[in-house]
């Protein structure tokens, strides 16, 4: 047991102290942030001051409304026409959209609005003049409100930068509000009624039978994120185990080690040591997340800290460990069969394939978490770490299914350890050539 501990300790200390660990631990969240936050920030970078917009009001009575509406600019909600029905795209999409809107709100820009009389020439001349000013950067863009704007005439927005979706959205929102108000006003609806009509409708999605607690998709986000992180982490640490085993074989350290410790003890020690490194990394990320959440909450920002029960967190850890041990054991087996890292990479490909299949199976399971397909898939040990987690968060499956999945999974871990141990014992001392499958099968049968 003390020898087992020595192996675990070496594996853990060496890896946690390594530069690679620091890079991944710090780098991964940074990368994540880079890919989610930075695009929004970049999209929001506003060069210069307020957006200068000229309005050519051919109808002659809309300018004031449009100006006021622009001045009190609110983020665009294109919900009634442009956007496809969100339901089909799943909660992820809603989440992204919410983020975009939030970002747009943060970037709510101010407008400088000026009126350009429509009578100053033919419409073409007016436009040519305004185009010129836009070209000289005196204006960011101009609006042309047609005479029949209230009865469906098309409003034109000419702008230097057609790709600036935020400005476009805000201008559009302002025009829509102004025109709607004008239409209602025209039909004698008073302002009070208008405000009441315009009151936004809010909808909240909560899990049925969830005790009324609010869940705005964070649970889902958590599990999807967790699934992805688990998938990547299993892959990454599986490769670590592969590399560690190959190192000891390549350098022939195995020979010294085997003269001091039983091969099975050594192998399991390595697996456990590396798993602790992975858990340490999770813990650091988790604490950082909670810390950041608290920091932002303290500053009044509304940061969604996933509200999921402790049971779910426990499941995340359990299913991660199960997946890790299944795949890392496979990697240990492969590592003891090959002679170089290159060979290890080649022979490891099927393992990656298996993992990828498990990851993609997540999508049909997300769509219908309680279908019999989902149930079966979440019981298969190789896929359960991701698929069962998704079921747990989306629509809690019966406890017996979770228990069965865990039971099957850890039974598989035990069986794999036993098999891998037999191959490892012989393979680690076989130098010079890669072991063949028949040889490996023979080693497994050897007493």
């Amino acid at each position: 047991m003390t020898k087992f501990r020595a192996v675990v300790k070496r594996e853990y200390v060496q890896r946690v102290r390594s530069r690679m660990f620091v890079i991944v631990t710090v780098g991964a969240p940074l990368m994540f942030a880079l890919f989610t936050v930075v695009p929004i920030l970049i999209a929001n970078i506003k060069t210069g001051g307020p957006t200068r917009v000229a309005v050519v009001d051919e109808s002659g009575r809309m300018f004031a409304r449009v100006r006021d509406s622009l001045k009190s600019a609110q983020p665009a909600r294109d919900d009634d026409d442009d956007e496809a029905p969100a339901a089909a795209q799943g909660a992820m999409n809603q989440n992204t959209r919410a983020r975009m809107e939030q970002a747009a709100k943060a970037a709510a820009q101010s407008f400088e609005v000026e009126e350009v009389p429509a009578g100053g020439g033919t419409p073409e001349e007016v436009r040519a003049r305004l185009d010129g000013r836009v070209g000289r950067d005196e204006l960011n863009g101009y609006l042309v409100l047609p005479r029949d704007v209230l009865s469906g005439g098309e409003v034109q927005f000419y702008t230097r930068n057609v790709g600036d979706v935020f400005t476009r959205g805000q201008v559009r929102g302002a025009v829509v509000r102004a025109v709607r108000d004008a239409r209602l006003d025209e039909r004698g609806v008073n302002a009070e009624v208008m405000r009441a009509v315009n009151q936004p409708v809010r909808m909240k999605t909560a899990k049925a039978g969830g005790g009324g607690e609010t869940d705005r998709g964070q649970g889902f986000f958590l599990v999807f994120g967790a699934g992805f992180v688990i998938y990547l982490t299993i892959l990454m640490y599986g490769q670590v185990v592969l590399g560690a085993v190959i190192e000891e074989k390549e350098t022939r350290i195995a020979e010294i080690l085997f003269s001091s410790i039983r091969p099975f003890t050594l192998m399991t020690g390595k697996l456990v040591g590396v798993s602790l490194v992975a858990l340490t990394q999770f813990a650091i990320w988790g604490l950082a997340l909670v810390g950041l959440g608290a920091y932002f909450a303290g500053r009044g920002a509304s940061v969604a800290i996933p509200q999921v029960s402790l049971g779910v967190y426990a499941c995340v850890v359990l299913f991660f460990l199960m997946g890790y041990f299944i795949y890392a054991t496979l990697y240990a087996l492969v590592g003891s069969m090959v002679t170089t890292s290159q060979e290890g990479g080649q022979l490891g490909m099927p393992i990656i394939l298996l993992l990828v299949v498990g990851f993609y199976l997540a999508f049909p399971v997300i769509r219908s978490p309680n279908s019999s397909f989902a149930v079966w898939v979440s019981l298969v040990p190789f896929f359960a770490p991701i698929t069962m987690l998704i079921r747990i968060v989306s629509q809690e499956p019966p406890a017996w299914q979770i228990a069965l999945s865990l039971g099957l999974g850890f039974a598989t871990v035990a069986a794999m350890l036993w098999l891998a141990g037999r191959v490892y014992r012989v393979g680690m001392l076989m130098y010079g050539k890669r072991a063949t499958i028949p040889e490996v099968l023979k080693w497994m049968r050897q007493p």
Partner: protein
Amino acid sequence: MSEQQPTLRIEGVTKRFGEFTAVDSLSLTVRAGRIFGLLGPNGAGKTTTIRMIVGITRPDEGTLELFGQPVTPELQNRIGYLPEERGLYKRMRVGDQLKFFAELKGFSGRAADEALDRWFEKVKLSDWKRRKASELSKGMQQKVQFIAAVLHDPDLLILDEPFSGLDPVNVELLKDLVLELKEAGKTIIFSTHQMEVAERVCDDICLVNRSRKVLSGSIREVKSGFGRNAVALRFEGDDGVLEDTRLVASVERHSDDLEALLAPGADAQELLGRLLAAGARVSRFELVEPSLHDIFIEKVGGE
């Protein structure tokens, strides 16, 4: 350490890998406090035998007894092993990994730290303790590997080709350390195919070839039992006596002297008498023991 009890006793041990028999009913005894040479050409079964002694593999037949007990994992802690194929963790500090290897032998804590410093001093590597293995030269790495084998103060030390690839200065250094360990009462099994080295350090030897034991015993016994008598000769005069095949089996001529291999049963005294009687002026007449090298060539190369 009792003198009576052998450190290692191997009885009729056989190890097969599929069709191939790597070790064939081998028996040998290693006495405590001696340096035992396990000699033989490459592929003779030396490494397989050693692997069975250190508990990496188990024999298919026969028994192995260490310190008077059947081999168990616990006994592994009393063995130090320097394999022929050896390595270190490249990215780990050498001091740390030596402590790790010692810990796997159940030796840790303050005592281990002190022993580590002592050994680093002995092999003149004190300044390198905190360096990573990849920064060390090959010879230094080999000395570190040697420390890995002896750090936990084993009663039985097994060295498989310990000097291969070392420069003469370091060969002398390690050889002295090995002899020092012997003085301290340790038993050492020394596997090599370099007969010159074996001849200088071993007390007892066992020669194996093609999975079988060819001969064994103390160096003295082996040499005298080899039944080969050679005479180194330098003389001026008639050398007709050397043609007598009842007396001289063969003659090997060197630059200024020659070596005459006596025929079986022939007496060196008779040869000297005949030479003198023939009027030769003898300036050198020396009975030469066969070297281990000669024995090796004869026993192994002749087959």
